[in-house]
């Protein structure tokens, strides 16, 4: 019997029928046009997700999700374990990179209007993935249990309370009670390592399957002109290019993690006053600032309530933008494009403002 790759794969094929799948993947093509650089963003997100899983598992070997043990266990990771500070730093920075690229990905979809028919459900799953990623970041931020993260979590879990009717319950569910306690920490840890990974995998599978089924979208004007766009086969041409991008991104995140490793404050004191300079992670800054600019009372309701309502309307608006922007080639489409630019300027400006 000949021993080579072909017979080896044939063994699996006889039992698992992978050939149709492989043949399908070899047929996949990636269109080449002036905006095709944004096609790399999707797989880059997967790279960072993979890095997060690996470093997260490594950290979870030694992290203790209790009020007494959390900060001390991270201190132990950073001081006793070989290069523990580097593992923690990679985990923290890779989260930042991942969410940054998620936002770039989302923005590129919005500007090229790839959410138009037939890709509306892909957009919806993508938006759900964005929300899940940001919740990942939010829950992870509390886990070191130092002053800054405790205060940021107190503020963050207080915001849903402004929602009428259900707000109180949402806050109680998130906090494990009315206040942030050790129960909150354990709860957030559970979300971060068990519930959210399951959720993100489920939605990710749907998202990726939909992308494969629909194929890669091409820009609006090519579609209108019904030009055939030159395409590159996914395997091996596009995937090889993706490998290079992955290598460079991996090197970048490792280098940045080495040079800008985060430090760890002392364990949070539930009785202490809030420290100076409380702020959430950077991807929440613009929301934070939006909340801050509303006055405490606006007529019969609190300013916070108005802000939360406006933000929720905005979020729902972004969720359903494929249905709102249903004629992307017309003036309405251009209006949504300008709306997107405005949204980006607003987000960046408010983020910078909140740091000043």
């Amino acid at each position: 019997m000949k021993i080579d790759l072909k017979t080896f794969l044939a063994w699996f094929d006889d039992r698992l029928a992978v050939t149709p799948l492989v043949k399908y993947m070899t047929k996949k093509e990636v269109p080449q046009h002036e905006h095709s650089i944004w096609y790399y963003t999707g797989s880059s997100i997967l790279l960072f997700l993979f890095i997060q899983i690996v470093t997260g598992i490594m950290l979870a070997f030694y992290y203790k999700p209790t009020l007494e043990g959390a900060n001390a266990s991270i201190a132990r990771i950073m001081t006793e374990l070989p290069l523990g500070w580097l593992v923690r730093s990679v985990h923290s920075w890779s989260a930042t990179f991942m969410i940054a690229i998620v936002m770039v990905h989302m923005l590129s979809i919005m500007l090229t209007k790839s959410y138009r028919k037939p890709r509306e459900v892909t957009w919806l799953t993508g938006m759900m993935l964005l929300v899940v990623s940001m919740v990942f970041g939010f829950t992870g931020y509390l886990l070191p249990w130092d002053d800054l993260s405790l205060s940021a979590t107190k503020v963050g879990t207080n915001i849903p309370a402004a929602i009428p009717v259900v707000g109180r319950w949402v806050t109680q569910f998130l906090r494990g009670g009315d206040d942030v306690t050790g129960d909150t920490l354990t709860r957030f840890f559970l979300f971060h390592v068990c519930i959210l990974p399951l959720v993100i995998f489920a939605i990710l599978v749907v998202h990726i399957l939909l992308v494969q089924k629909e194929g890669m979208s091409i820009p609006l004007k090519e579609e209108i002109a019904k030009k055939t766009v030159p395409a590159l086969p996914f395997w091996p041409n596009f995937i090889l290019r993706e490998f290079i991008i992955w290598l460079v991104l991996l090197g970048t995140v490792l280098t940045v993690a080495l040079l800008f490793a985060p430090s760890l404050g002392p364990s949070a004191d539930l009785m202490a006053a809030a420290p100076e300079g409380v702020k959430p992670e950077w991807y929440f800054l613009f929301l934070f600032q939006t909340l801050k600019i509303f006055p405490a009372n606006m007529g019969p309701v609190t300013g916070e309530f108005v802000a939360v309502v406006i933000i929720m309307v905005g979020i729902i608006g972004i969720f359903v933008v494929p249905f709102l922007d249903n004629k992307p080639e017309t003036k309405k489409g251009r209006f949504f494009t300008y709306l997107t630019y405005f949204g980006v300027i607003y987000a960046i400006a408010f983020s910078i403002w909140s740091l000043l």
Partner: protein
Amino acid sequence: MRGIRVWSILMMVSLVLAPLAAAAGQASPPSDKAGVQAAAPPGAQQVKPAARQEAKPAAKPPAKKGEEKRTEEIVPAYSDIKQRSAVIVFYVWLWLSIAVLAYFLRLWIKEADRVYKAKYYEPEESPRKGNPMAAGVGE
């Protein structure tokens, strides 16, 4: 349009850089506690290896027994010179490998593109399609 393309790229770049700047700013959290060792200063200072030695002193928390609370901030640092050298070697090796692998991958990409352009592997258009003697053409 070229204008929109430039504009989009500028926005993407600022989107990526803004969190880096914000996070580097966050790297020095409020230090109002006396006796705090130098928290990792943001930005360019840490690029020089000489400055790095003093910017990140070996920061073990003072040996405390029992339930005494730690009051100092823990700054990430190497625990010995061997670790520091190992990490530097690893990073040099990492970027060298990225350069080498990228070089080879570019060769592969150029070849794959050339092969694709020459339509070498398209059995559907192969003139030998349907010929029972042409087993395994392009497979």
